[in-house]
């Protein structure tokens, strides 16, 4: 047990050091600040999906809906209401979380593929609203005409608009809080109940656990954090369009999660990094980049069902 704990601590230290130093080492190996920011933002989305998938055992194929609601929440707030990044993020997260909380009771009774299908269906509803409601959302062209506002703490301002490094650290700090909250929850009695449901739902029910209620809570937490990621994503791009809500975006989150390893805490972040870097590199080489990402995904799933982090872990143990 001691060795496992030590390995976990070491993994945590490495991940946080890499994240903290990203703006310094990433350019040295040919990357750029926005690329690192995108990894962290999509990593957060995938990790929040994994809170539900890897730790509660429930597959959602509609997380882009809440990711997109967070994105539109922040964009619409800054565009129409107040030019405040902070308030925008809060509004985005609230909209995504409330939507998940309302939709939740309808879907948490379902299991397996039925759950996944209905999450897609609800996701598409939001997609079509964003797509059709031209006058507010900008429709298919997306919502432009706004930029992330500087952070104003009264006594000092942080220019996250023009300083990509400063924005990276805003994203990294938000990521740290969200991920820290997830890790905290998973080590609590509440988190252990979720893992129990993943392990054996019937056993959990016959231990007196109201399983649907716990899945609902896990769903709301997961979607709330996905909408936080979505809000950061819109801020990163200074733009949002309906594709952020589209079901293929949900699919990308699932791919990232499974690619990295859904039974490991950091797996989805690794998966997001691989996905984003592959996308960035391949899309500059070929229009058919998705074919290569797909091939890589299929190979990983076939030969390393525990994901990339699963391979690394096995190598260390051997």
């Amino acid at each position: 047990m001691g060795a496992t704990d030590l390995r976990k601590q070491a993994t945590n230290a490495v991940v946080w050091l890499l994240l903290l130093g990203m703006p310094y080492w990433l350019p040295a190996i040919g990357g750029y600040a926005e690329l690192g920011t995108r990894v962290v933002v999509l990593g957060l989305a995938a990790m929040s999906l994994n809170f539900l998938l890897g730790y509660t055992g429930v597959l959602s194929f509609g997380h882009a809906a809440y990711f997109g609601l967070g994105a539109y929440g922040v964009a619409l707030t800054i565009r129409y209401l107040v030019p405040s990044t902070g308030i925008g993020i809060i509004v985005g997260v609230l909209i995504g979380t409330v939507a998940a909380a309302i939709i939740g009771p309808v879907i948490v009774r379902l299991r397996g593929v039925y759950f996944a299908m209905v999450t897609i269906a609800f996701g598409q509803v939001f997609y079509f609203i964003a797509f059709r409601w031209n006058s507010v959302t900008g429709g298919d062209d997306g919502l432009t005409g706004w930029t992330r506002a500087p952070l104003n703490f009264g006594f000092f301002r942080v220019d996250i608009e023009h300083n990509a490094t400063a924005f990276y650290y805003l994203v990294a700090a938000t990521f740290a809080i969200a991920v820290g909250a997830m890790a905290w929850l998973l080590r609590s009695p509440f988190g252990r109940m979720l893992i129990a449901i993943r392990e054996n739902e019937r056993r959990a029910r016959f231990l007196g656990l109201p399983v649907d209620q716990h899945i609902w809570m896990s769903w709301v937490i997961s979607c709330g954090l996905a909408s936080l990621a979505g809000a950061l994503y819109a801020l990163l791009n200074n733009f949002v369009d309906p594709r952020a809500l589209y079901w293929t975006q949900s699919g990308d989150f699932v791919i990232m999660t499974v690619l990295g390893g859904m039974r490991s805490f950091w797996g989805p972040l690794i998966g997001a990094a691989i996905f984003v870097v592959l996308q960035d590199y391949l899309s500059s080489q070929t229009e058919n980049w998705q074919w290569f990402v797909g091939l890589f995904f299929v190979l990983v799933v076939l030969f390393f069902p525990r994901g990339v982090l699963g391979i690394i872990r096995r190598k260390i143990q051997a």
Partner: protein
Amino acid sequence: MKLLSVESVSRHFGSLIAVDSVSMNVEAGELRAIIGPNGAGKTTFFNLISGMLPPTAGRILFDGNDITNLSARQRVALGMARTFQITEIFPELSVRENVRTPVEIAAGLRLFPFMPSGVEAKIRGRLDELLTMGGLTKIADRLAGELSHGDQRSTEIMMALALKPRLLLLDEPTAGMGEEETYAVTQLIRRLHKETHITVVLIEHDMRVVFRLADRITVLDQGKSLAEGTPSEISANAAVQAAYLGKAA
């Protein structure tokens, strides 16, 4: 004092009558075995008691309360816990974590996003007590999914007991086990029954287990209650011999 009272309970599946107007009274502290040939309706009867299935007709009283229409979860809250014919545990968690979950549920912690101060020590104390009682201390850190049938069963029984139930329902606790494991699990049940004075109702196939353990035996045959009595009464009962023991021997 009657703890469990089943009154003329039936269960139909379409035209099949799996349980046909069966009554049974179990006294507090008793160890009751339900036996019967394959297809006698034992497991269905068990599922009616634990709330996995609603009965088509009849009434079930637990400690004087009508629980006929309560969900499985509500019955657990009133003090019933069960194990399954095919062991239901958390395979990728350690034995300790398996037992810890019901200990935390029993302590009312299921919604706690943190461990309240001072509670951790109590939880650990209770956990150690259960692991010792179940003879699981040595394997506490092993993954439950990697254990033998017998150890998995012991884990499942201790998970049920962690809820501090007044009635423990065991569905074929020695199913699929070899001689040694059967003996170990039988001993465990006997010892737990003695130490905690808990009421136990179990289904069992293995006659040696039944006659060694049970205070009283209920015999089901073709969905009906054929006989009820002490082990010696049952083994002397002509109808039972004809329907069941005769065939088994």
